[in-house]
């Protein structure tokens, strides 16, 4: 402490000396400066900005004041109006991705009952950080979900309605359309399933089309129905549909099916400011993305989509019963950083 103060006082004294010296130097410079030239400069400064204006100013002061206040009122008035207009039409940050951040997953009873080989236990003790939905493209294990769910994933698992868990490999992602393709057959436990019952319809669907979806906003599969409300998505995005359907975080990546059981899109997000405004990527872009998958990512197993729809003549309940085995919950583990 003592020595500190000693150093301090020396430093302050030195700095003080420096200040004194610098002031003297400035004083000298100032004295030697050509004040007349600088006064001239300062004056020209004046004439640049005011000069001739000044006399006018004196003359028209009142008129100007009135005009200025009118201008101010108009300006702020329009800004205010514009802002209210903007607020009512504000779309920024109203698009929310529907992946679910899981704090703690409660393992359902069903999951435990079906946990024959203990594979499910790993998940229940180590809950995933992000969850969404996804569904099979083919019976042999190609699978699609949203890119925003599996982004930055360390590992991806999918879990069926029966509680079976498989590890999945990300084959290809298409960021622009928010699509990700996974493959389940990397996991030996996955047995090839019968061909998927639904087909994929790339033709644009009509407004008012009755649609439904299956997804996992919670640990249980949840059905939701609605109708196609617009042929374009968020902010006129032509690659998506707007759908009037109630979806929640966790629904992302779920299939959007029409009456006949054709997949017409993939649920990808919703508008936060209004209820029941959801968006789905059109199947068309799903197919497009499929064509972009490099052949070697497929490891020699070609990806052939089902063309025959076996759901068309079934009742909705039957459709769902057949479908639900092909819709999985996607659980994603991320590196915590």
């Amino acid at each position, binding site marked *: 402490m003592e020595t500190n*103060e000693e150093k301090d006082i020396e430093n302050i*004294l*030195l*700095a003080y000396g*420096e200040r004194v010296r610098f002031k003297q130097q*400035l004083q000298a410079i100032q004295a030697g400066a050509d004040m007349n030239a600088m006064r001239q400069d*300062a004056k020209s400064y004046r004439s640049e900005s005011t000069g001739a204006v000044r006399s006018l100013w004196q003359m028209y002061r009142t008129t100007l004041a009135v005009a200025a206040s009118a201008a101010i009122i108009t300006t702020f008035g329009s800004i205010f109006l514009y802002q209210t207009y903007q607020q009512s039409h504000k779309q920024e940050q109203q698009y929310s991705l529907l992946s679910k951040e899981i704090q703690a997953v409660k393992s359902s009873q069903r999951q435990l009952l079906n946990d024959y080989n203990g594979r499910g236990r790993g998940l229940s003790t180590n809950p995933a950080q992000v969850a969404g939905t996804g569904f099979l493209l083919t019976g042999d294990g190609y699978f699609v979900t949203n890119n925003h769910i599996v982004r930055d994933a360390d590992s991806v698992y999918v879990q069926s309605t029966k509680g079976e868990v498989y590890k999945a490999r990300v084959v290809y992602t298409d960021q622009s359309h928010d699509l990700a393709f996974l493959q389940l057959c990397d996991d030996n436990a996955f047995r090839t399933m019968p061909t998927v019952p639904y087909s994929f319809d790339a033709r644009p669907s009509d407004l008012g089309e009755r649609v439904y979806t299956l997804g996992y906003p919670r640990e249980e599969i949840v059905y939701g129905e609605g109708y196609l409300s617009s042929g374009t998505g968020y902010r006129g995005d032509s690659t998506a549909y707007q759908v009037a359907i109630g979806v929640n975080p966790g629904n992302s990546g779920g299939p959007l099916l029409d009456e006949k059981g054709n997949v017409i899109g993939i649920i990808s997000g919703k508008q936060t400011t209004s209820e029941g405004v959801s968006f789905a990527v059109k199947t068309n872009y799903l197919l497009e993305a499929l064509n972009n998958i490099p052949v070697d990512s497929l490891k020699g197993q070609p990806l052939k989509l089902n063309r025959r729809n076996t759901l068309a003549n079934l009742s909705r309940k039957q459709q769902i019963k057949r479908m639900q085995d092909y819709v999985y919950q996607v659980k994603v583990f991320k590196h915590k950083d």
Partner: protein
Amino acid sequence: MKESRSPILTDEELLMGLAEGTDDALTHLYRRYFPMVLHFVTTNSGNEDDAKDIYQEALIVLYEKVRNGSLELHCQLKTYLYSVGRRLWLKQLAQRSRFMVRDVETPASDEFVAGQIDEDLSVHEERDRQFDLMADSLTRLGEPCRTLLDDFYIQHLSMQEITEKFGYTNTDNAKTQKYKCLMRLKRLFFTEYKA
């Protein structure tokens, strides 16, 4: 109104010159930006002497920042000097209970830069307070201590020169005297400064 100056120094070069404390850099700084401050102060109920004081203080702020290496300029040097000068003059006007000024330049409007200038000025004020107190403490110290410390720390005379000037028998003796004086100054200064 761009007069031909030779050579035309950039802000960078001016600041380097300022760090070295060359007369040349200072002359340039005066010639280039003083008219701006002069105009500002005189259009806002000040006179030439006020402007000189304000500009001097602004340069001191700049100089001391340059010297201790803490200067990070996020705007033009011109804007910095104008903004600092403007604040300083506003403070003076506030003491004369006048709060409005007419700008002749655009002061730094960027929030970050404005915040930085605020900070620079509060550091400067604190330092002013310190230096005022230091001047006061030195006066109260009395002779010969005041001159001895002044010679050593401010005039940077060598111990040898001081020994001769004050007629001490040897430099060790002078050093002891200097140390004693410094301790007295320390007491005077810190009792005030901390209070």
